[in-house]
């Protein structure tokens, strides 16, 4: 209704203007040849709103008051005023302006340098009056086209605005949902953290007796093994002594030692007296105890018995039924099970066994630690359960934390006024031109790939809103894309325009590796321009 009233008013004004204009056609006829006045009461190039400054008289004062001139010097094709206002209708002043009325379309100021240059700058052609060129009056058509364009834009704006409203709804709802979920999660986090801590305490508690029992068992086993090992060694030493003591006199002499060529130290295949005595700690002969304590350590690595010594199975141990490569079956068996502490212990034991037997004859059979007793087993079971409980509680806590963080990031996202850009999040839009397919994923990243197939090149990750101060949501900046050889990291500046569909409408690369996209979206279908003035007739 208001729009209608304005239109009526405009027509009324126009009628008044026209009638006064027609009225002065007669006066104009008598002023033919005068270049001073083209229309009612004002010099050529002067807008109606300024005509009061150009009232005909004896003098004219420059609008900046810098000089007073004889009125004849207005539009006399010579620049007299510093501000160029004495020559509104000619090209004489470098800083002057010419006003075209452009009835039927938009009135316009053009720089004085465009007056009389043989180019039709005003649609009513009034800027060219020397006769050198005749300008058609195209204001009616332009006015009509401009009106159509305005209406089209208004229509688009209207449609887009409706969609935009929905976007705001979606965005607001999404954020609200997330906010309430956030509250819940914060509560959950506290809860799950408490539970987790409790479980941790229980776990630690259960692990103490478990460890004690296992350690005890372990230590007993170690002791057992050590004693077995000691016994084995005694046997070895005894056999060796027996063998070395060729004459059976319970003494091992250097002569007897010299019978063993492997005792040779200096590699001359002969065991000298000196060498033998060195092994014998400077004695000529040793008894069993001395042999065991002093000599055996010297020679145990080099001593070779003439026949392989058959290992006598020590008492009371469980032994592998067959000789087999020491480690592998155990390891394989262990690898098949889920690794938990029990198996880790076994593996460690096996490895310890290996090390302990380096200096002894090969093909030693593996000794396996006996099973835990029932009591210990129970403790282990309990501890395992408490560990499982803890893991579960911990996972639940971590998941809650993650969701919390995700929601916080989301809530911190700048989705525009009223969260209008929410529907664009998690979407991607593509545009194909001659060579490439461009892809834009708002708030995420931009990329291109060749039409004919090939790798995707990253043009930039979401940076920030990059519009001008009064409206930062006009532009998006994506940056730190793939680096250009000898140039910048690729980046994209997206300009948003009102449109009923979300789509990229054009892509350009005005600077090497710096891209611009034009993107239509209903999200920016709001009227940011001031109301179109119908004309400059403000004399009422």
């Amino acid at each position, binding site marked *: 209704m208001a729009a209608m009233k304005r239109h009526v008013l405009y027509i009324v004004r126009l009628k008044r203007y026209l009638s006064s204009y027609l009225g002065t056609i007669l006066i104009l006829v008598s002023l033919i040849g005068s270049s001073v006045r083209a229309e009612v009461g004002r010099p050529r190039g002067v807008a109606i709103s300024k005509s009061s400054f150009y009232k005909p008289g004896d003098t004219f004062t420059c609008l900046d008051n810098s000089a007073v001139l004889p009125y004849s010097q207005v539009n*006399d*094709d*010579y620049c*007299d005023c510093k501000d160029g206002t004495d020559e509104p209708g000619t*090209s*004489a002043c*470098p800083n002057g302006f010419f006003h075209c009325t452009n009835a039927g379309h938009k009135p316009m100021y053009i*720089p004085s*340098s*465009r007056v*009389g*240059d*043989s*180019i039709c700058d005003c649609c009513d052609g009034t800027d060219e009056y*020397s006769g*050198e060129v005749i300008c058609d009056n195209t204001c009616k058509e332009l006015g009509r086209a401009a009106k159509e364009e305005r209406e089209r834009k208004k229509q688009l704006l209207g449609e887009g605005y409706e969609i935009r409203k929905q976007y705001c709804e979606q965005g607001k709802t999404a954020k609200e949902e997330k906010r309430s979920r956030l509250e819940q999660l914060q509560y959950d986090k506290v809860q799950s953290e408490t539970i987790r801590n409790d479980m941790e305490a229980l776990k630690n508690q259960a692990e103490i007796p478990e460890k004690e029992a296992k350690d005890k068992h372990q230590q007993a086993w170690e002791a057992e093994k050590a004693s077995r090992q000691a016994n084995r060694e005694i046997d070895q030493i005894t056999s060796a002594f027996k063998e070395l003591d060729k004459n059976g006199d319970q003494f091992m002499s250097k002569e007897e030692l010299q019978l063993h060529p492997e005792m040779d130290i200096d590699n001359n295949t002969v065991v000298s007296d000196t060498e033998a005595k060195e092994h014998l700690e400077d004695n000529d002969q040793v008894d069993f105890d001395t042999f065991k304590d002093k000599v055996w350590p010297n020679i145990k690595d080099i001593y070779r018995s003439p026949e392989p010594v058959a290992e006598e199975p020590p008492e009371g141990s469980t032994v592998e039924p067959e000789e087999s490569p020491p480690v592998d079956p155990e390891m394989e068996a262990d690898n098949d099970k889920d690794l938990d502490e029990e198996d880790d212990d076994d593996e460690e034991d096996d490895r310890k066994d290996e090390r302990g037997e380096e200096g002894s004859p090969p093909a030693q059979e593996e000794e396996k630690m006996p099973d835990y007793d029932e009591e210990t087993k129970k403790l282990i079971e309990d501890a395992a359960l408490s560990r499982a409980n803890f893991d579960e509680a911990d996972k639940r806590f971590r998941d809650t934390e993650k969701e919390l963080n995700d929601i916080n990031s989301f809530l911190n996202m700048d989705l525009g006024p009223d969260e209008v850009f929410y529907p664009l999040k998690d979407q991607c839009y593509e545009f194909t031109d001659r060579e490439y397919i461009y892809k834009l994923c708002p708030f995420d990243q931009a990329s291109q790939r060749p039409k004919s197939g090939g790798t995707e090149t990253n043009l930039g990750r979401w940076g920030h809103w990059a519009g001008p101060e009064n409206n930062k949501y006009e532009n998006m900046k994506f940056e730190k894309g793939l680096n250009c050889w*000898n*140039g910048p990291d690729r980046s994209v500046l997206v300009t948003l325009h009102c449109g009923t569909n979300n789509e990229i409408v054009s892509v350009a690369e*005005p*600077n*090497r590796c710096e891209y611009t996209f034009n993107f239509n979206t209903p999200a920016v279908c709001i009227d940011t321009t001031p109301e179109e003035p119908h004309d400059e007739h403000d004399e009422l």
Partner: protein
Amino acid sequence: MVTIIDPHIKRDDNYKIHKEATSNGYYVKNKDGQDYDGWCWPGSSGWLDFTNPEIRKYWASKFALDEYEGSTESLFTWNDMNEPSVFNGPEVTMHKDAKHFLDWEHRDVHNVYGLYQQMSTAQGQIQRSTKNERPFVLSRAFFSGSQRWGAVWTGDNTGEWAHLKISMPMLLSLNLVGITFSGADVGGFFKNPDAELLTRWYQAGAYQPFLRAHAHLDTRRREPWLQPEENMKAIREAIRARYSLLPYWYTLFYVGEIRGGPIMKPLWVDFPADKATFTDEDSYMIGSALLVHPVTDAGSSGVNVYFPGKTVWYDVDTYTVYPGGMTHYIPVTLNKIPVFQKGGTIIPRKNRIRRASNLGRFDPYTLVICLDPQGSAEGDLYIDDYHTFRYRQGEYIYRKFTFENKKLKNRNIDYKGTYKTTSWLEQVVIVGLQNKPTHVEVTGSSSERKSLDHSYIPETKVLVIRRPGVNIGEDWTISLQ
């Protein structure tokens, strides 16, 4: 509009020119008599033998408006890469034993190859025109005589201060050997000049015969409106300064066509007795009236300018007077170009701002008169229709202005010239006038005397005469009392 046409022809059976060249045997041959095949922008390429007049005729005919699709009489040409440039050739040019017309080896005709192409292109533009229009062809390769066919430039330079500096001795050398319509790429072809360098380069280029800003594809954009505001304004002022001097440049080029001689000159050409000018490469003359000393250093706050001769020199911006025979320190800001008008000269200017030079062809003139110590000055002005060859049938104006004994006279010095113009005189500026006149009047051919408003500035001894309003192509006298 100017588009680029290089001499290398893509060897491609879908390309009309290649097919015609091959079937007619127009290509330069290699030493074995086959079409010479070299590598250039399009890949495998052939080169037309411009040393052959038949082939030049063929090339020229290709510019006919119905041959060259989409072209109009406003489309002109830039012949680049016409040394010729051959990427896989020795010293990046054609093999010395390639064979040309009349069995000449390339080594003998290499230096004129580019000239012949430019010539042929220019002839093509002349022939295509139904309105007797003049051609415009820019060429990279040139030889003695190229000045008759168009403009040249100094090739692929770099956006560095050293390259700005060296443009002057290069162009001075070219001018001395007759290649007057020459210039260097403003801003440098390679690399990215900073805003200050770009500004100073526009300023220097505005006072060199051929002005063109250019850049390699991979450089950052550097249009003036993308520069910081201060620099953009300084660049705009430099371009406007050049445009306002176009009547002066145009007159110099006319005289150059008639009599030869350099347009951009080392100082010693006009002052051969002044030994101090012999090694000066930082200043040069444009015609006989203007001394130019562009700023070519970063962050410069002033330059030392040597003023030759037993005369005086006037700063064209401030009208400060500098006696000749000494060096003076000239302070500069970003938008200052040290330019000086010699005492005793009259320069015709068109001070109205236009978007293109052609749009100002009917604009009025301003005469800037700088007096010598004797109070005299003279200058000339050539006018024609600015775009056709009709000046060769007498459609031109060539006049002389003299100021002596307080009288400014406009006289015709070539009665063969019959052209008429509507351009008139809107202002006269007389610099170095010792005393304010009491009365100024103009007498035209009708002997009617008209009194003229005027204003005198005693600090700079400048008199401005308002709106004489007389036609620039007629005899008149302005007298001071």
